[in-house]
């Protein structure tokens, strides 16, 4: 079964479907649970559960499990299906080594996780849910990470990384 909502030749949902759909999920979750849908906090609560701490917010773990499950469904029904690959083909092509790419990605993700926990959220938390609540803290964090990510990508581009 294929869900035909595609505008692009690569089969993505058009932004004017995917964006509002995401927005409705945010509103829907407020209507049901009165909570925002930040992803980085779900990692933090899951880490607490994995290390046996008793103060973890357990619904967040179910939320973090739901994301890859729904993602798999989306890839199967809308996308091109499960595809065993590195996921970092442009970097692997540039550096010609899975090991180097793996090490760089691990360090990058560690910095990202540290930063998300320090800032109190990530792209979904601050970027969408916090901004949608008109939170000054979320707007400031979102503006900062957007600007720094764009600048970093530009510098990586100068260094030959696509």
């Amino acid at each position, binding site marked *: 079964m294929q869900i035909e909502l595609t505008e692009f030749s690569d089969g993505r949902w058009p932004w004017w479907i*995917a964006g509002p759909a995401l927005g409705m999920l945010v509103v829907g979750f407020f209507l049901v649970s009165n909570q925002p849908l930040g992803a980085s906090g779900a990692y933090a609560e899951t880490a607490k559960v994995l290390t046996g701490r008793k103060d973890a917010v357990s*619904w967040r773990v179910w939320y973090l499990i739901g994301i890859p499950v729904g993602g798999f469904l989306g890839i199967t029904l809308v*996308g091109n299906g499960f595809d065993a690959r590195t996921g970092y083909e442009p970097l692997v092509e540039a550096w010609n080594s899975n090991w180097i790419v793996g090490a760089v990605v691990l360090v990058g993700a560690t910095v990202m996780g540290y930063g998300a926990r320090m800032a109190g959220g990530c792209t979904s938390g601050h970027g969408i849910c916090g901004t949608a609540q008109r939170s000054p803290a979320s707007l400031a964090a979102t503006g900062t990470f957007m600007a720094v990510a764009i600048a970093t990508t530009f510098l990586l581009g100068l260094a030959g990384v696509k």
Partner: protein
Amino acid sequence: MQSSLGHKVAGLLFGAGFGFVLAAAKLHEYEVIHAMLRLEEAYTFLLMAGAIGVSMPLLWLLDRAKITTLLGGRIALSRSKVTKANIVGGALFGLGWAVSGTCPGPAVVMLSSGAGLAVLTVLGLFLGLTIRDRQVARNGGSATVGDGEQRLVATP
């Protein structure tokens, strides 16, 4: 803190919905994120604007109407003041985001789409978050829980 069954089921379903849309928009693809960050493609910016454009006015209206939510009591929006941690943390997050080409939500979709190196991305995220939590705990504080993360409300 043990959540009620309703909160867990809602978390699972909305997580699945979130993951589905991320996958349908291919936000779990390194190329899509980098095309946005290189400012070569407006798609992801427009998508985010679409999400906020729909949810911001609706949340404003629901808050004004003081509606009661199904499981969480009277609706409550969070609107914290800016702190230095928002800015410094945001900058570090942006740096890591550009390097790893994905963020916390899409990273787990990357994994379930078959991207092998995403194992390291997810591992790194857990590592970084835990390092920060440990550091804050050593200094006797508790982690910043931003306005987009879970908060304690009437019926948890």
